[in-house]
């Protein structure tokens, strides 16, 4: 048998089994919390019961494994602090993400819709979302006259005396691209000075570091790892934690493939040169 042309289905099977067993037999990983995540946690931990925050779910199913862990952990943290949450999204794909977060966190914690949280739904704000963000800064009711369930804005107790960004303590952006966190920094933070906390995908994280350094971002979770770190901070392990273990295992499988391929290659070359 020629190992150099190993049936690739064997590799597929190894990877699938490795990932599945990582979930079935999880091992606790020692997670060091990075400063950006700690900053995010500290910012939200300072909130008082009754304070309000905005949550923007600007991502869809394809980036869900990366961003949902952070979203769930941060939402749970807010509810633990008795902070009231207003949801919206600038992308149509964000709606199911909000629905999923609510069913996983708000429903089990028995939070009341329209009192403890409200979902304003989706609004197209142009390619950069600027028209919606500007609107939220000046007159929120004009942008979202009704909630996603069709309740009129003034009939929602939570929104009773809410006019614009100044009635919120923070804007939390779960962002997969544009429109997303950079637009909130550019329009909402620069003009209305609302603190921005964010969760972004691992690949887009490097370009956000300058904003963390300049203080335009008050904290950030990057990818699944960031989500796992936040879970560690609120002491509620979830998908982020178990996912991170699976992720490490998957990386090892890929590295193993590279190592195995090279060993086989050198061994084969020696034999043929003889």
């Amino acid at each position, binding site marked *: 048998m020629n190992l150099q042309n*190993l049936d*690739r289905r064997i590799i597929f099977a190894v990877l699938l089994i490795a990932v599945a067993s990582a979930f079935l037999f999880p091992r606790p990983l020692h997670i060091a919390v990075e400063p950006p995540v700690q900053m995010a946690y500290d910012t939200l931990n300072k909130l008082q019961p009754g304070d309000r925050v905005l949550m923007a779910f600007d991502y869809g199913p394809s980036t869900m494994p990366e961003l949902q862990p952070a979203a769930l952990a941060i939402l749970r943290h807010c509810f633990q602090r008795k902070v009231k949450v207003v949801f919206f999204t600038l992308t149509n794909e964000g709606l199911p993400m909000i629905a999923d977060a609510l069913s996983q966190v708000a429903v089990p914690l028995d939070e009341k819709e329209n009192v403890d949280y409200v979902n304003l739904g989706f609004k197209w704000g142009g390619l950069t979302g600027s028209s919606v963000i500007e609107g939220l800064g000046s007159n929120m009711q004009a942008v979202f006259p009704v909630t996603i369930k069709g309740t009129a804005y003034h009939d929602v107790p939570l929104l009773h005396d809410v006019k614009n960004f100044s009635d919120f303590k923070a804007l939390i952006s779960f962002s997969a691209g544009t429109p997303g966190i950079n637009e909130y920094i550019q329009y909402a933070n620069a003009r209305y000075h609302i603190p921005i906390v964010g969760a972004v995908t691992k690949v887009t994280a490097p370009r956000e570091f300058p904003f963390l350094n300049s203080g335009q971002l008050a904290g950030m979770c990057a990818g699944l790892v960031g989500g796992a770190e936040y879970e560690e901070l609120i002491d509620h392990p979830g998908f982020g934690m178990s996912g991170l273990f699976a992720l490490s295992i998957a990386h090892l499988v*890929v590295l193993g*493939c590279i190592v195995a391929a090279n060993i086989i*290659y050198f061994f084969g070359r020696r034999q043929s040169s003889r």
Partner: protein
Amino acid sequence: MLVDYFFPRTPVIHGTREIFLNWGRIAVTFAMILGLINLLFSNFKKVMLQSRGWIYNLILLVSFAVTFYFSVPYHTIVKDGAVTTLKGTDAGTVGFQIFMNVYTPLSATMFALVAFFIASVAFRAFRAKNIEALLLLLSAAVVMLGSVPLGDAWFAALHLDSVFGTHNLSWLSNFVQSVPMSAAQRAINLGVAIGMVSMSIKILGGIDRSYFGGE
């Protein structure tokens, strides 16, 4: 467009740009109708002729029809005297359920196949046959190890940190990405941009018309 860039604060011109972008989006929807007619017609033909595998073409037509029926129309709901209009794609409709439980898993699973191919390519193509291949696989391995907590944990377990201090694997991975990788990518981007400018000028000047079918 060029005019818009140089006079961005002129409201009339800026408005024109918005209008053009808007027209573009509307035109795309009409263009999609053209594609859908092509798709439905060719599948219908195969079903009618009962050509090889026609049953799958029928499955395609049926799933299109079912989704179309549930998601395209607007529904008016009267509840407690209040009238709300729901789109067939809004949360809570059957169309939305199809999106969440048919479209989304299909799309995500298709995307997930990439993970398997990443592993199979690692086995097939990352062999140190020459210097180029060696550099390729070394930088890949460093960045991969540096991006999961395991890499630095091993680094510490081997007591390498007593020699290198904070210059651990995640430091090295960041260095590789921010220096040689960004330098090479800058060169690629420069080349791409120059090629793009020259291609644009050829198109705007009518020098390259091959995409139009020659003439």
